[in-house]
């Protein structure tokens, strides 16, 4: 099932996305456009991965100083960063390079402490799509990528809905695509993840307890390009859906 969180009729509601629209628990059915889409989970800890696709690593090779044996590059984000499906993301006026990042997002469903790879997927509630924008102008070499680059208000789109883990038989077999104004710009496949979903859960839970509602954004493949105000950015993951976001100028 596809679980959405929406605002409608003056209240926050949960809804199931079906072929005929959004079905609320009281039976009301809405068209997609009638709802204000919220991030599908109220997040606990938001963990994000950098440079977790072999092809994207190659794309960034010129500026990288890390070797092949380094541990996963994980960083954290605050809830201020999230915005739902069909939301708007600001592009700072002074930025020269701001790009999207289409990512498979894992939602934890059970407490996970020192979980081994073989048991890792049992701790997943489901999956959704993240578009984790970065403003590269603000990169500094301290706790890189620093929060000024990656934790801007509303610069991580999440949604449209949470797909139950039971409906995603293999999270390592999903294709990802990003379209800017309808044009295909980014393409990848989760089989190319350097650290796959079970590996990430095993690694993270080896030193921190993961709790229901925690999110792991697994990183993005190659093909990131600059986006400008007015651009519509659509991130698509096979079997999960399409996450739509619009870039707006600051102050609009």
């Amino acid at each position, binding site marked *: 099932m596809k679980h959405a969180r929406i605002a409608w009729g003056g209240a926050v509601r949960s809804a199931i996305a079906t072929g005929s629209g959004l079905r609320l628990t009281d039976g009301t059915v809405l068209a997609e456009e009638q709802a204000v889409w919220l991030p599908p989970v109220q997040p606990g800890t938001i963990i994000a991965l950098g440079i977790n696709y072999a092809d994207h690593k190659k794309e960034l090779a010129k500026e990288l*100083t890390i070797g092949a044996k380094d541990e996963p590059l994980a960083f954290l984000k605050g809830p201020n960063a999230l915005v739902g499906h069909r939301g708007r993301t600001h592009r700072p006026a002074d930025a020269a390079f701001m790009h999207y990042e289409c990512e498979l997002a894992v939602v934890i469903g059970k407490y996970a402490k020192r979980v081994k790879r073989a048991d890792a997927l049992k701790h997943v509630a489901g999956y959704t799509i993240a578009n984790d924008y970065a403003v590269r102008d603000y990169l*500094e070499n301290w706790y890189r990528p620093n929060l*000024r680059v990656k934790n801007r208000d509303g610069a991580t789109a999440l949604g449209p809905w949470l797909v139950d883990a039971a409906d995603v038989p293999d999270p390592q077999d999903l294709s990802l695509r990003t379209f800017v104004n309808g044009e295909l710009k980014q393409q990848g496949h989760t089989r190319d993840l350097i650290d796959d979903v079970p590996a990430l859960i095993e690694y993270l839970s080896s030193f921190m*307890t993961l709790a229901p509602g925690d999110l792991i954004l697994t990183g993005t493949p190659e093909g990131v390009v600059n986006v400008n105000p007015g651009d519509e950015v659509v991130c698509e993951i096979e079997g999960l859906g399409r996450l739509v976001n619009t870039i707006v100028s600051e102050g609009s």
Partner: protein
Amino acid sequence: MLSDALAWPRHAAWPEDRALAQWQRDGATALRAPPVGTAYGVLLNHCAALAALGDAVHAAPYKAPPRAPVLYIKPRNTFVGHGDTVPVPEGVDELEVGATLGIVIGREACRVGEADALACVAGYTVCNDVSVPHASFYRPSLRFKCRDGFLPMGPWVIAARHVADPDALAVRVHLDGRLVQQTSTAGMQRPVARLIADVSAFMTLAAGDLLMLGVAAGAPRARAGQRVRIEIDGIGALENPLVADGGA
């Protein structure tokens, strides 16, 4: 908003608001961590801590000193209260004790000016921003900073109006009763108001969020079996024992 000093007794449904003097008289046993939202730390805000790195800040991989505030997040699995134990991971000899003032946000802070920043503060608490000692600050390090129990805080939150100058508070760290570090909240590259202003320039701090001012140079280290006490004048004293963690 707080009236005096708000604490969260472990076995009560609601927090208790008392005068600080009363809390101090009655003792601070069995209190939970203040229920904060997102906890943000600031790297190298203490001028002497940055200076201690010397010329390394201009060399690779940093190539330049930090410009904007360099933040990190301590996630919810790190939050523990006064008296709770801090696990020392297997294979780690010592943990770094990061004594710092915790600023509890009371009013949403988005692009606030320095002059208006203190009006966004609900109160202050004592934090121990624990780390596994590590030499490089190039990459964020969850493994060294985000382990379970690595952010003791409390014992209570003192209402901001009782703290005349948050940038001039004496900070002392004791290990098993012995004074090992004596610093203050002064000497920061960004004092409290300036820090809130500069952080809120690029991200919103929500009511309930915790912003830690920064750990002073020369942070002491402690071993399993030792008891850490951090005192901040006018705020309170936070005590936590370090215990060896059995697992990996």
